[in-house]
C-alpha cells in the first residue's frame, strides 16, 4: 500500500494538501487529494496495474506519469482513452480501466502472453487466410479482441461545447522549464508580446521537482537557490507582466506551415500565429530495453520524483535506482526522504564523480554499484525482484527484492514538435541523443530538447533563444560541456529472456524486431510498418530512440546512422470535438428575406446549397396546376446576381461566356450558358443590359459563390478593367408566373407592361409600392412571367404586398419542387442536375448559346473539337404512358441489357397526366417518336418516347404572348 507523506526533508516548498474528496475507480470509491491527477490518486491508493497491453495482455502500470505511454489510458466519465496522468481528478469522477476481461487484475486475455509467442513472427500476415473461408470468421474474433477504450455510443456528452481561439503574439514559447522561462524573460525584456504555453497546471517543468543547487547562472539572484526555488522566483517575477499571457494545462500539439502552432486545452483549440516560436519542450527519461522491462513497478526517475514532490506520494517500500548520471542520485535522495528504503543505486558509470549527490547517497548508507546496470526484473504481476550485472547483460551478479525499480538512464529530447515531418532527427554522437539541428526560419529550440545540461546552461540557452526570437536573428550553436554529457547505455541490455519490449504500446520485442529484419524489413520505415513498432498510442514518443538505435545495430549500421521513423502531428491525440469547435453548427444556414413568410404559410423546406428554400406549400402537383391555370409567385432570392460594368465589360463577357452580346440592347435580356476550359457546360443564367454599359448576370443558387470567385480570378489574371458587384445578398427576388401575371403587375407599376412595350426577354426599371424594382420578363415555368428584383430589406413586406394585391386571382406561392415540375414540362435543363462533368452544350441542346466564331473565349478549343465530333448522345425530353410509374432520378436506360443512357430528372406531369422527364440517350434515339426502355430501381422496365420539344407548350406561345 502506498502512503502519502506529510513533509519532505529535501523539498522546502512541499506542503501536503489539505482537502480530500472521492471518486470511483472500476466502481470502487477512492480517496484523492487536491492537486492529484487521476493517475496519482490511483497510485496513492495502491493501484499498481492500470491497464493490459495491446497484444499479450500483459499487466502494465504507471511509469512516467507524464502522458507519454499507453499504461494510463482509461475511460473517464465514459470518455475513452483518457490519459489519466494528465487530467486533474474531480470529485465524483467515474474512472474505468480498458481492454481487460474481466478485470485488469485478472485478465483472461493474458493467455495471449503464452499463446502468441509460439506463433511465427508477423503471424497476422501468415495465418487465417487458408482456407479462404477462414478469414472472415477469424476476423470477427480479431475485431472482438481489438481496440482499447469503448466509444460512448450513447453519446452522453455530445452537447459538450468546444471553442476555437486565436492568438497573435510576437513570441510564442512552448514549455515553461528553466529554458522556457528564460526565453519568456528575454522576449519580455525586449518589449515583445509573449505567449507561454505549458502542458502542466503549474509552470516550472522538471525543475519543479528538482533540488539541485543553481550555480553560475547569468541571472545572479538565482545562484544558491534550489532549482525548485529558482523557477518559483522566475515565475513570480514574470507572471504578472502585462505583455505576457500564460496558457497552462495547454498542449502545443503541432506546428504547421508558416509556423502555425496548434494547441489544445480542455475543450479548446488554440491557433497561434507568432512571429517567432521558441520550443523548450524538454526531455523525458530514456526508454531502456531489458528483460521484462514493461512490468508494473518499473518507473522513470522523473516519474517517481513527480509522485513525491508534486503529489506527496511515497511510491514504494523498497526501491532500486538504475542510473547513469547524477539525476539518479537525486531521485534516490527524494525517495529516501519520502520514506522508501533505497536498496541500491546501480550506476552504469565505471567511476561516478565525487560530488555532493553521490557522496550524500553514500553517507546515507545506500550501496552504490558502479559499472553495472539492470538485467531483468522478476515478478508475475509486478516487480518482485531485480537482477543487475554488467552493461552488456552477460553476467548477472546481484539481485534485490523490491517493489520499485527506478530507471534514470539519461534523457530523450521531446523532438516531435521540432521534427513533425519536416526534419529528421539525427544521432548526436557527443551528446548521445537524437537531435533536430536544422530548424525552419523563426523557429528556435532551447533547453533539454538540445540535451540535458545544468540549470545555468538551460537558462542561458533559453535566454539567448528568447532574445533571438524577439529580434528574429540567428541563434548561436547550442553547446554542452563534457561533464553535462550522459553516456547512453546499450539500447537493449541483452541479458537473455523473451520479454525485451522495444515498443510497449504495440507489444513488440527485440526478437520480433530482429526476425522482421531477417525477413527483409531492413529499413527503419518498413521495419516499423511490419512489426508495428511506434504505431500505438504514444506514436513512438517512448520508443523512437530505441527503435532507431536497435534498427541501426541490427541492420549492421553504425550508431551515427540511427534514424527514427517520421514523427508526425499531433504530439498527443486531439479530439474531433476540439478540432471541429462549434463548426458543425456554424456552417451558415442562409435564409431569404421572405423566409418567415414561408414559414407562416406552412412551407416545407429543402436545402439548396447553403440556402433553405420552400419545397412547396401544398402538394407540388396541386401547386403546379395552380400556376398553369391561375397565378403563382415563387421566392427566387437565392439566385446569384452579379452586376458587371467598366471599360472592358463587353470584352470580359465575350471572354467568359460562349455567346455574343454586343447587339444586346439596353433593356434586353439573353439566356446564356457557362462553359469551362474543358468545353463542358457547368452553369446557366441570364444576362441583362440594365443601362448603358451595365450588365446584370443571374446565376444558379448553388454555383453563385464559385462563379463570383471564377470571375474575379479571371479579372485579376487577365487584367480586365471590370467592376464586379455581387448583389445577391442585397437583392431579394420573386417570379410571378401565370397567364394573368401581366395584368396583375400592370396594376402595381406605372410603366407600360404590354407585349409591345415590354416583350419577352426584356427588362425594365420601375417602382412597386415606392420600392425600386428591376423587372425581367423571363421565367423557368413556361408561363408568361416576370422576375422582380428589389432591395432585400423590402423582401417580406413586398412579398406580403404581392399576395395581398393578388388575392382576387388568387395569387398563391409555390415552391422549388413545383418549379422543377413546371420546368420539366417545359424541358428546361438544370446544370449539375441534368448535366455532368461530361456534358457539352451541343449534346445538351443549348448550342444556340455558343458562338464559336468569336475570337478567343474560355473553352473555345474544346468546343470546336466537340462540334467537329458531332452529337453522340443527347439530352432529350421524354414522356411515358399515363399508367406507367415514375422512374427515380438517375436510373439507367438499357438496350439489350446494355446501358445506353440515363434519366436525369423525372416527374409526373399534372398538367398532361403522364410521366415526363429529361434523359441522356444515344443520337439514334434522340429523334422525336423514338422509344427506349428505362429500368426502374425495382427492376421493372418502362417505355419512354422521345419528344421533339418540350412536353408543354412546345412552341412557347405562352411565353411570348
Amino acid at each position, binding site marked *: 500500500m502506498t502512503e502519502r507523506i506529510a513533509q519532505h526533508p529535501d523539498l522546502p516548498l512541499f506542503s501536503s494538501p489539505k482537502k480530500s474528496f472521492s471518486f470511483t475507480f472500476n466502481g470502487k470509491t477512492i480517496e484523492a487529494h487536491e492537486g492529484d491527477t487521476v493517475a496519482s490518486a490511483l497510485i496513492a491508493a495502491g493501484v499498481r496495474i492500470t491497464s493490459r497491453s495491446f497484444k499479450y495482455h500483459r499487466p502494465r502500470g504507471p511509469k512516467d506519469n507524464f502522458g507519454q505511454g499507453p499504461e494510463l489510458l482509461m475511460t473517464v466519465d465514459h470518455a*475513452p*482513452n483518457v490519459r489519466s496522468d494528465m487530467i486533474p481528478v474531480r470529485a465524483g469522477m467515474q474512472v474505468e480501466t480498458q*481492454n481487460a476481461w474481466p478485470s485488469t487484475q485478472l485478465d483472461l486475455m493474458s493467455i495471449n502472453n503464452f499463446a502468441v509467442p509460439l506463433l511465427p513472427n508477423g503471424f*497476422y*500476415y501468415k495465418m487465417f*487466410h*487458408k482456407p*479462404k473461408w477462414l478469414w472472415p470468421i477469424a*476476423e470477427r474474433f*480479431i*475485431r472482438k479482441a*481489438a*481496440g*482499447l*477504450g*469503448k*466509444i460512448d*455510443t450513447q*453519446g452522453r456528452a*455530445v452537447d*459538450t461545447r*468546444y471553442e476555437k481561439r486565436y492568438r497573435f503574439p510576437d513570441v510564442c514559447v512552448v514549455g515553461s522549464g528553466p529554458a522556457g522561462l528564460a526565453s519568456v524573460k528575454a522576449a519580455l525584456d525586449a518589449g515583445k508580446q509573449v505567449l507561454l504555453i505549458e502542458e502542466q497546471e503549474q509552470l516550472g517543468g522538471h525543475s519543479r521537482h528538482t533540488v539541485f543547487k543553481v550555480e553560475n547562472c547569468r541571472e545572479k539572484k538565482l545562484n544558491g537557490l534550489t532549482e525548485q526555488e529558482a523557477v518559483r522566483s522566475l515565475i513570480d517575477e514574470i507572471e504578472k507582466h502585462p505583455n505576457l499571457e500564460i496558457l497552462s494545462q495547454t498542449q502545443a500539439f*503541432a506546428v*504547421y*506551415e508558416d509556423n502555425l502552432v*496548434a494547441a489544445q486545452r480542455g475543450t479548446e*483549440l488554440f491557433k497561434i500565429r507568432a512571429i517567432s516560436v521558441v520550443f523548450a519542450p524538454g526531455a523525458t527519461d530514456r526508454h531502456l530495453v531489458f528483460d521484462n522491462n514493461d512490468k508494473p513497478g518499473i518507473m522513470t526517475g522523473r516519474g517517481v520524483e513527480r509522485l513525491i514532490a508534486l503529489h506527496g506520494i511515497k511510491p514504494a517500500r523498497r526501491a532500486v535506482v538504475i542510473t547513469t548520471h547524477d539525476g539518479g542520485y537525486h531521485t534516490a535522495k527524494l525517495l529516501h526522504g519520502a520514506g522508501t528504503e533505497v536498496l541500491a543505486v546501480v550506476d552504469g558509470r565505471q567511476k561516478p564523480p565525487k560530488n555532493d549527490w553521490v557522496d550524500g547517497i553514500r553517507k546515507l548508507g545506500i550501496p552504490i554499484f558502479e559499472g553495472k546496470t539492470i538485467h531483468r526484473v522478476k515478478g508475475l504481476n509486478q516487480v518482485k525482484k531485480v537482477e543487475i550485472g554488467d552493461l552488456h547483460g552477460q553476467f548477472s551478479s546481484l539481485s534485490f527484492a523490491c517493489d520499485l525499480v527506478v530507471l534514470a538512464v539519461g534523457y530523450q529530447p521531446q523532438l516531435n514538435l521540432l521534427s513533425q515531418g*519536416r526534419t529528421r532527427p539525427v544521432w548526436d554522437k557527443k551528446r548521445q541523443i537524437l537531435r533536430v539541428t536544422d530548424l525552419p526560419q523563426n523557429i528556435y529550440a532551447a533547453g533539454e530538447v538540445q540535451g540535458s545540461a545544468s540549470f545555468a546552461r538551460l537558462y542561458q540557452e533559453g535566454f539567448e533563444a528568447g532574445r533571438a526570437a524577439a529580434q528574429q536573428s540567428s541563434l548561436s550553436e547550442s553547446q554542452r560541456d563534457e561533464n553535462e554529457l550522459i553516456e547512453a547505455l546499450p539500447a537493449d541490455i541483452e541479458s537473455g529472456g523473451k520479454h525485451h519490449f522495444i515498443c510497449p504500446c504495440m507489444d513488440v520485442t527485440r526478437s520480433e524486431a530482429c526476425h522482421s529484419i*531477417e*525477413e*527483409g*524489413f531492413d529499413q527503419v*520505415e*518498413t521495419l516499423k510498418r*511490419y512489426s508495428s513498432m511506434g504505431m500505438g*498510442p504514444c*506514436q513512438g514518443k517512448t520508443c523512437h530512440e530505441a527503435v532507431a538505435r536497435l534498427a541501426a545495430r541490427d541492420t549492421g549500421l553504425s550508431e551515427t546512422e540511427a534514424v527514427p521513423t517520421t514523427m*508526425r*502531428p*499531433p504530439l498527443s*491525440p*486531439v*479530439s*474531433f*470535438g476540439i*478540432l*471541429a*469547435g462549434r463548426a*458543425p453548427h456554424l456552417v451558415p444556414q442562409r435564409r431569404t428575406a421572405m423566409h418567415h413568410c414561408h414559414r407562416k404559410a406552412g412551407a416545407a423546406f429543402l436545402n439548396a446549397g447553403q440556402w433553405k428554400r420552400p419545397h412547396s406549400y401544398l402538394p407540388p402537383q396541386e401547386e403546379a396546376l395552380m400556376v398553369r391555370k391561375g397565378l403563382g409567385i415563387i421566392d427566387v432570392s437565392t439566385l446569384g446576381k452579379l452586376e458587371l460594368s467598366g471599360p472592358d465589360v463587353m470584352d470580359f463577357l465575350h471572354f467568359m461566356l460562349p455567346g455574343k452580346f454586343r447587339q444586346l440592347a439596353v433593356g434586353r435580356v439573353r439566356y446564356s450558358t457557362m462553359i469551362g476550359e*474543358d468545353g463542358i457546360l457547368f452553369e446557366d443564367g441570364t444576362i441583362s443590359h440594365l443601362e448603358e454599359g451595365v450588365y446584370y448576370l443571374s446565376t444558379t443558387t448553388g454555383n453563385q459563390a464559385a462563379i463570383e470567385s471564377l470571375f474575379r480570378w479571371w479579372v485579376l489574371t487577365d487584367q480586365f478593367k471590370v467592376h464586379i458587384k455581387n448583389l445577391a445578398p442585397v437583392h431579394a427576388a420573386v417570379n410571378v408566373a401565370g397567364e394573368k401575371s401581366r395584368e396583375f403587375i400592370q396594376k402595381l407599376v406605372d410603366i407600360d407592361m404590354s407585349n409591345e412595350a415590354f416583350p419577352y426577354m426584356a427588362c425594365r426599371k420601375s417602382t412597386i409600392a415606392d420600392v425600386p424594382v428591376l423587372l425581367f420578363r423571363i421565367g423557368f415555368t413556361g408561363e408568361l412571367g416576370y422576375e422582380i428584383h428589389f432591395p432585400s430589406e423590402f423582401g417580406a413586406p413586398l412579398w406580403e404586398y404581392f399576395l395581398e394585391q393578388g388575392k382576387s386571382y388568387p395569387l398563391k406561392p409555390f415552391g422549388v419542387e413545383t418549379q422543377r415540375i413546371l420546368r420539366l414540362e417545359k424541358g428546361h435543363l438544370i446544370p449539375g*442536375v441534368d448535366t*455532368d462533368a461530361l456534358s457539352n452544350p451541343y449534346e445538351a441542346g443549348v448550342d444556340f448559346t455558343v458562338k464559336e466564331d468569336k475570337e478567343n473565349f474560355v473553352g473555345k478549343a*474544346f468546343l470546336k473539337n466537340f462540334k467537329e465530333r458531332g452529337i453522340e448522345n443527347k439530352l432529350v425530353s421524354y414522356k411515358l404512358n399515363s399508367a406507367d410509374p415514375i422512374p427515380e*432520378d438517375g436510373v439507367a436506360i438499357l438496350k439489350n441489357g446494355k*446501358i445506353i443512357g*440515363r434519366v*436525369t*430528372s423525372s416527374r409526373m406531369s399534372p398538367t398532361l397526366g403522364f410521366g415526363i422527364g429529361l434523359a441522356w440517350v444515344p443520337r439514334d434515339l434522340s429523334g422525336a417518336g423514338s422509344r427506349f426502355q428505362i*429500368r426502374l*430501381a425495382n427492376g421493372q422496365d418502362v417505355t419512354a418516347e422521345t419528344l421533339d420539344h418540350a412536353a408543354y407548350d412546345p412552341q412557347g406561345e405562352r411565353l411570348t404572348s
Partner: protein
Amino acid sequence: MTKKMWKQHDLKKHYDIVIIGGGAHGLATAYYLSKMGVRDVAVLEAKYIGYGGSGRNTAILRSNYRTEEGIRFYDQSIQLYENLSQELDFNLMFSQQGHFTLGHTEASVSGLTTRAENNKALGVDSYMLDPIEIKKMLPEIDISDHPRYPVLAALYHPPGGIIRHDAVVWGYARGAEQGGVEIHNLTTVGEIRTEKNKIKGVQTNRGFVSCNKLISVVAGWSSDVCAMAGIELPFVTHPLQALVTESYKPWLHHVVVSSNLHIYLSQTDRGELVCGGGIDGYPHYGMRSTLAFLETYAAHVLELFPVLHNVKVQRQWAGLCDMTPDYSPIISPIDEIEGFYVNGGWGTYGFKASPASGYNSAQMLAQGKVPANIAPFSYNRFRENRLVGEKAAASVSN
C-alpha cells in the same frame, strides 16, 4: 530459421524489362510478369517499397464505379483481390465489410442511383438504401434533419471494404522475388535515355541500366518521370491527406464515404478509425499536413457521427495523387517512343486497382498488345478529347 522475403541484388547492366516505381502497381506488374514467365525484370525504387501512395493510402477497395469501363476494370481488380491472400500465401486481411456512399443532395442521390443501376446491369452488387435502412447498419449515424446536410440516401456495395495496404505491397514483392524478379530499393531513376525514338535504358544513382522495355509506374511522380522521356501527359499532382485515430473497440463495421461532405472513414481490425477527405485544392509535391484538413474533417465527421466528439486523432500524413482530367488512369504504350509504357493517373483511388493494373500492364508488356479491359485508358483519349466518364461521379472517389 526465418525466411527472407526478398534479397538484395547487384544491379545488372541490362534487363529485358525495367519497372520504375516500387509501389503496389509496379510490384504487381512485376509479379504478374513473373507468373507469365517473364523473369528478366527489375523494379527500381527510389526509397523503399511502399514509400509512395501505396504506403500512405487508406486502403478502401470497391468496384461500384460509374462508367462501364470503370466498373469492368475495378471489378476485375476486386475479383483478383478476393483470391490474392491465397495466391500469394500472405494474409492481406481483405475485409469485405461493405461500402456506403452517402448522398446529401438530390443531385448526388441521382448520381448514386445512376451508379447503382449501371452496376446492377453489369452484375456488380450495389444498390440504394434509404435513411432507415442506413441507420439499421450504422446505428450511430445521425439521419435526423438536424445536421446541416442531412443524409438522404446511400449507395451500398457489399463487396467493398478495406485491406492491409502494406501487406499488398509486401505480398506482391515477395511473390515477384520468388518468381525471379529483382527488386532494387534506394535506386533512383534520374534520366531516361532513348535513341531514334526507341528506349535505351535508365540512368540511376547506381549506374546505367539498359532495357528493351521500360514502364513508368510512379503515380504522384508521373509527370516528372515522363518528362525525363520528353513526354507530357495530363497528370496534375495534388497532395491528399489522411488521419488515423487512437484505437477503440471496433464499433464501425462498414466503410462510410460521404460524397457531399467530402470525407470518409473506416475502422481497422486494430481498432483505429482511418479517415480521409478530398485532395488539397492546389497542385503540389510537398507531403505536408495541415491543420485545416483536421478541422474540416472533424467538423464534417461530427455531422454524421456526433458520438465521435471525444474520439482522438493520433496521426496525420499526406501523399501525392496524380490526377487526370477524367479521374481515370493511363495505362498505355507511348507511341512516340518504342518500348516506353506509362501506368499512372491513379489519383485518390488507385490502390484498389493494383491487381488489375499490374495484371493488365504485365500482359501489355509481355505480349505487346493492349488488353481490352485497359484499352479505354489509352493516353490518346486526351488528344481525341474522349474522356472516360468517371469525373461525373467523383467528389470523394475512395
